[in-house]
């Protein structure tokens, strides 16, 4: 028989006797409040950005998105230059980063011996840890001049007949910005792919190889098929990151006002233009136009992220069937 003196199970206060525990109610209340606050925060962000952009939305309407203009003298603005810059830099980054990321993930899960894989995996993660402003610093002072003096002339030598690679090499433009973005999204995409490949049930792979396929054929036929939705989600998440990057892009993209077909020419993106001009808007209309750019950026990022999450959820649900 224990003489505990305190029986935690016995009801204490009157409330408790009715089955309500004050501590629990308070705690749950606080937790609910926090969750409501988090949701409200999201709503508040959307509301604040849209309402600050409203004068421009009213003035220019949806046509703003495909109008190429940015003239504070005439107070006439349009987002096309920046939408183009954002889309082109991000998609080039995607094109370059996706095969690289998949290859790196494959290397780490299938090819490298464990002793080699661990440090290399760490190093790829460290690449993600580099703050974007430091990548931008390196971009302005080291990478940009190298692109201008070495990479772009070389590209022009081979492919100069394509308008994309025409024009004067420059250390600030679409190409250096796209390459910096590539460096940024490789760690994200490859980390997710690595998880995916590591989780592929190995009996599927073994079965394929037992039937006589080579390693690569097993990977291509089985692993990719299994992981395809996951890879798509990883790619989309990387894309979302690329869309939203403002600082490093601002440092190397050149701040141009109009669209130039050449990848060497200066350009500008949504995030970069906001970072450059928001604090110095010369008129209310310019200020709200810049916020309109922010709203467009928010929508693009949102859609990309939601689609990525939807793919992941459907992927997980169908996986449970296994």
């Amino acid at each position, binding site marked *: 028989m224990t003489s505990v003196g305190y029986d935690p199970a016995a009801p204490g206060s009157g409330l408790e006797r009715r089955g309500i525990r004050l501590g629990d109610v308070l705690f749950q209340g606080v937790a609910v409040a926090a969750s409501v606050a988090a949701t409200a925060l999201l709503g508040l962000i959307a509301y604040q950005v849209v309402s600050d952009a409203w004068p421009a939305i009213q003035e220019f309407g949806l046509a703003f998105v495909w109008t190429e203009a940015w003239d504070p003298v005439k107070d006439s603005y349009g987002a096309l230059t920046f939408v183009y810059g954002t889309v082109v830099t991000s998609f080039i980054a995607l094109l370059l980063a996706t095969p690289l990321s998949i290859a790196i993930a494959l290397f780490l899960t299938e090819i490298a011996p464990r002793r080699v894989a661990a440090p290399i995996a760490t190093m790829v993660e460290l690449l993600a840890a580099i703050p974007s402003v430091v990548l931008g610093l390196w971009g*302005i002072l080291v990478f940009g001049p190298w692109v201008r003096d070495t990479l772009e002339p070389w590209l022009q030598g081979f492919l100069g007949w394509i308008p994309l690679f025409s024009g004067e090499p420059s250390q600030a433009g679409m190409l250096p910005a796209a390459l910096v973005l590539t460096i940024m999204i490789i760690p994200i995409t490859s980390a997710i792919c690595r998880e995916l490949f590591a989780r592929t049930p190995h009996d599927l792979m073994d079965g394929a190889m037992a039937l006589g396929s080579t390693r690569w054929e097993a990977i291509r036929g089985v692993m990719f098929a299994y992981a395809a939705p996951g890879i798509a989600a990883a790619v989309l998440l990387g894309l979302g990151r690329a869309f939203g990057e403002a600082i490093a892009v601002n440092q190397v993209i*050149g*701040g141009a006002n*109009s669209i130039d077909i050449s990848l060497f020419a200066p350009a500008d993106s949504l995030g970069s233009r906001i970072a450059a001009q928001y*604090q*110095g808007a010369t008129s209310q209309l310019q200020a709200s136009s810049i916020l309109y750019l922010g709203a467009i950026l928010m929508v693009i990022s949102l859609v990309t992220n939601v689609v990525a999450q939807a793919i992941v959820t459907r992927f997980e649900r169908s996986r449970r069937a296994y």
Partner: protein
Amino acid sequence: MSHTQREKKLMKKALALTLALASVVAIAVVGGRAEAAPARATGTLVGTGSTFVFPLVSKWIPEVAKAYGTDITYSPTGSGAGIAGVTARTVDFGASDAPLSAQQLADCKGCVVIPWALAAVSIPYNLPGLNGRVHLNGQTLANIYLGSITSWNDPAIKKLNPKLDLPDTKITPVYRSDSSGTTFAYTAYLSAVSQQFSRRVGTNTSVNFPTGVGARGSSGVAGVVKNTPGALTYVDAAYSIQNKLQFATIQNRAGRFTTPGIRGITQAVSQLPKNVTSLSQLKIVDPPKAAGPLAYPISTFTYVILPTNSAKAAELRKFVYWTVTQGQKFGLPLFFVPLPTSVKAFAYRELAKVKGAA
């Protein structure tokens, strides 16, 4: 080595590094306190804006602290940000090389614009190994920034520089990507001398340049020019000198090629009326022939913007009064010319309007 042993080693390394970083921060705080500002402020004033005037404001900050103990915080973010900052009352004063437009004055809800310094916009370029200094004129500059002149050995430039071996390097015009009073002064000049420029681009702190590379701040444009052969930009003279950039001589109405120095600026303002009553009289780009043979055509006043009704009115008045009187002498080594008497009188009159929450 077992897993936990490896882990422990890693943890120890991480802890050591964390300790190192923490002690670094501690040193920073303690060491910094040791050499902290002398007499603690009687007040603080926060301002932002023009990068053009930043070299001079940098000189003023320690002097003001010495003179009467006010701590000035100033961040060079561009004239546009200065105007926006004081309008939104996120700072106590704003600095801008561009006077406020009627709409901006209305949005500011009771602000005065006071000229507090006078300097020139230099045109530095990057052409290493050239056998002399480049001469340019307004029309050529306008065409460069319009994109119709694209290389250094263009006939228009050759005509102005018969003795120079100009290479066929491409010209990269660099402009301010942020909202800049220097852009305002420069585009005002180009619009005055070139109708095409005036029509196509116009005058503002932020314009749609049809060609070139953008960079943030006076620092930014000077930096791009420094790193890019063939580049050219417009920036306060102090930045060109600080960064050892060669700047061009610009042809004035008298036909002479002039430099953005003390004499050039002094002659540029010589045609001001004896009694200055409004900011519009302070436009000194493209001065007339009567100004003098050495008049530099791209000179500009730079302004401080104060709310007439501020809790810090007394400190603001003291600060701006000091800058307009005793502060002027600190500008000479940086090619800032002391304000002419008529402009000083205008400044005092405007300053008297800053009253504060009565």
